[in-house]
C-alpha cells in the first residue's frame, strides 16, 4: 500500500514490520519523530514491544546492548550529539557482535550549535565496527531498515542506517508500506547464535588480554568484509520479492552509461545530482549506499571507463579532507582518473542545482 508519509513515519512503519522485541529510546532533534511514531504504535496496541524510556543516549544504547544479548531483535535511533554521547557503546555493540539496527538521523555536531543535516556525526563513527548505509529517499530508508536486520543477523554485526536530517527525515513523500506476511517471509524470526539465558549461562564481555585481542578484531574485520556478498545477496532477494533494488546493494549508479565524468556522493544529495545529470546529460551519478564496509572492488569496476570523478562530501575531517574523498582516492590511487573533491552542505547548507554545477567547473574546494 502506498501512503504519503513523513520519512520518520516510514522508518517507524518498517520497524513495526520487523518483529522487534525491545526499543530503547531517547529523543533528539531531528530523530524525535521516529520514537514518537513508535510510541504511538505501542500505545495503540499496533506493536508489542518493550519500549524503554532511557535517560540518555548512553543508557539507550547500553539497554539496546543488554537486550540484544538476550537474543531478541532490537531497534533504536539517534542523531548527532546523541550518537557522540553513546560513542563508546558503539564499539562495545560491534565487539560483542550484537546485530542491533540503529537509525542515525544525520545532523551536524556542535559547536557552533546547529540542528541541521550533515554527515559529520555518523562519519565520526566510521571506525566503530558498525555497517553504515546512507539512504536517499523515504522508500530507501524504509527498505533499508528491513534489509539491515537480515544483513546484521547473518554476520553478527550492528548496522547504522543514516538518514539525512530534515532534508529527508521530515519530508513527506509516497512510500510503499510492505505487507506484514511478505516481510515475515523475507525476514524470518531471529534466532540468535548466542544469548544470555539463565538456564544455560554464558559469559559476555570478558577481559581479553594482549595475546588474543587482535584475533577478535580480525574476526570483526573478516565478518565486515564477508558482509559485502551478503549485502548483494539481500539486495537481490529483496528485488525478487518486492520488485525494488538499490544498485547492487552497495553502490547505485544513474545515467552513467557511456559517460566519462561522474559525481560521487552519499545520502539525499544524490536526488539533486540525479536531476542535474538528467538536465546536463554530460555526467553520471555514483551513489555510495554502503560506506562501511567500503565497496572497493565494486567502485573500481564502476570507475573503469571514467576520466573524471567529482567527490562530494557532507562532512569534513578537519585537517585533511572529506571522508568519502579519502576513501575513494585510496581505492583509485593507481587509476588514470582525474579526481576533485568538494565540501558542501555542512550544517544543513542547502545544496542547489547551481551549487552542483559549480563542482563541474570549479577547482576543488568548498562550495560555501
Amino acid at each position, binding site marked *: 500500500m502506498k501512503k504519503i508519509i513523513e520519512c520518520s513515519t516510514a522508518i517507524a512503519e518498517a520497524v513495526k514490520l520487523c518483529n522487534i522485541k525491545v526499543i530503547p529510546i531517547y529523543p533528539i532533534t531531528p530523530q524525535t519523530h521516529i520514537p514518537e511514531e513508535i510510541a504511538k504504535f505501542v500505545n495503540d496496541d499496533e506493536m508489542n514491544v518493550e519500549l524503554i524510556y532511557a535517560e540518555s543516549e548512553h543508557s539507550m544504547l547500553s539497554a539496546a546492548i543488554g537486550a540484544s544479548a538476550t537474543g531478541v531483535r532490537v531497534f533504536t535511533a539517534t542523531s548527532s550529539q546523541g550518537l557522540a554521547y553513546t560513542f563508546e557503546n558503539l564499539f562495545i555493540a560491534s*565487539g*560483542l557482535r550484537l546485530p542491533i539496527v540503529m537509525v542515525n538521523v544525520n545532523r551536524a555536531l556542535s559547536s557552533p550549535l546547529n540542528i541541521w543535516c550533515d554527515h559529520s556525526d555518523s562519519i565520526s563513527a566510521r571506525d566503530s565496527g558498525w555497517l553504515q548505509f546512507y539512504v536517499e529517499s523515504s522508500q530507501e530508508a524504509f527498505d533499508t531498515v528491513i534489509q539491515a536486520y537480515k544483513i546484521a543477523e547473518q554476520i*553478527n554485526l550492528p548496522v547504522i542506517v543514516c538518514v539525512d536530517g530534515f532534508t529527508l527525515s521530515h519530508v513527506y513523500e509516497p512510500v510503499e508500506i510492505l505487507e506484514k506476511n511478505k516481510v515475515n517471509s523475507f525476514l524470518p524470526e531471529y534466532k540468535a*547464535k*548466542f544469548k544470555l539465558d539463565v538456564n544455560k549461562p*554464558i*559469559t559476555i564481555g*570478558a577481559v581479553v588480554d594482549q595475546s588474543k585481542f587482535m*584475533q*577478535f578484531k580480525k574476526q570483526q574485520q573478516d565478518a565486515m568484509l564477508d558482509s559485502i556478498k551478503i549485502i548483494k545477496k539481500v539486495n537481490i532477494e529483496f528485488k525478487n520479492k518486492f520488485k525494488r533494488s538499490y544498485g547492487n546493494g552497495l553502490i547505485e549508479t544513474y545515467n552513467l552509461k557511456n559517460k566519462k565524468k561522474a559525481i560521487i556522493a552519499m545520502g539525499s544529495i544524490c536526488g539533486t545530482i540525479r536531476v542535474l545529470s538528467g538536465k546536463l546529460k554530460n555526467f553520471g551519478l555514483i551513489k555510495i549506499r554502503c560506506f562501511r564496509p567500503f565497496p572497493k572492488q565494486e567502485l573500481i569496476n564502476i570507475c573503469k571507463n571514467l576520466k573524471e570523478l567529482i567527490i562530494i562530501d557532507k562532512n569534513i575531517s578537519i585537517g585533511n579532507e572529506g571522508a568519502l574523498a579519502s576513501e575513494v582516492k585510496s581505492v583509485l590511487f593507481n587509476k588514470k582518473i582525474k579526481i576533485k573533491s568538494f565540501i558542501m552542505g555542512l550544517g544543513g547548507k542547502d545544496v542547489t542545482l547551481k551549487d552542483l554545477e559549480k563542482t563541474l567547473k570549479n577547482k576543488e574546494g568548498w562550495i560555501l
Partner: protein
Amino acid sequence: MELKIGAIIENPGNSLKNKRAGWRSFRPIWDNKKCTQCGLCWMYCPDNAIYIKDKKRSKTNLDYCKGCCICASVCKFNAIQIVKEK
C-alpha cells in the same frame, strides 16, 4: 583454543582454571593464633580469596589473592601481616 565471536565464553567459571594472582607484589600472612574468626577479612576480600568453612577461616587462597592488603587493613587484631612478595 577456539575463539568464539565476541569473546563469548560458553562454559562460565573458567577462572578456576586460570590463576589470576601473577601480579601480586604483597602477600598477606594470616596468623591463626591472633585470629578471632570475626569474618571481617572474609567480608572485605574483593577477590573472594578468603574462605570460611564450618565457621572457621582457612588460609588465604594465594592462587587468587592479588595482594591488595584490604584484609590486613580491616583486621582489628593484627592477625594479618603483609610481606613483600619475592
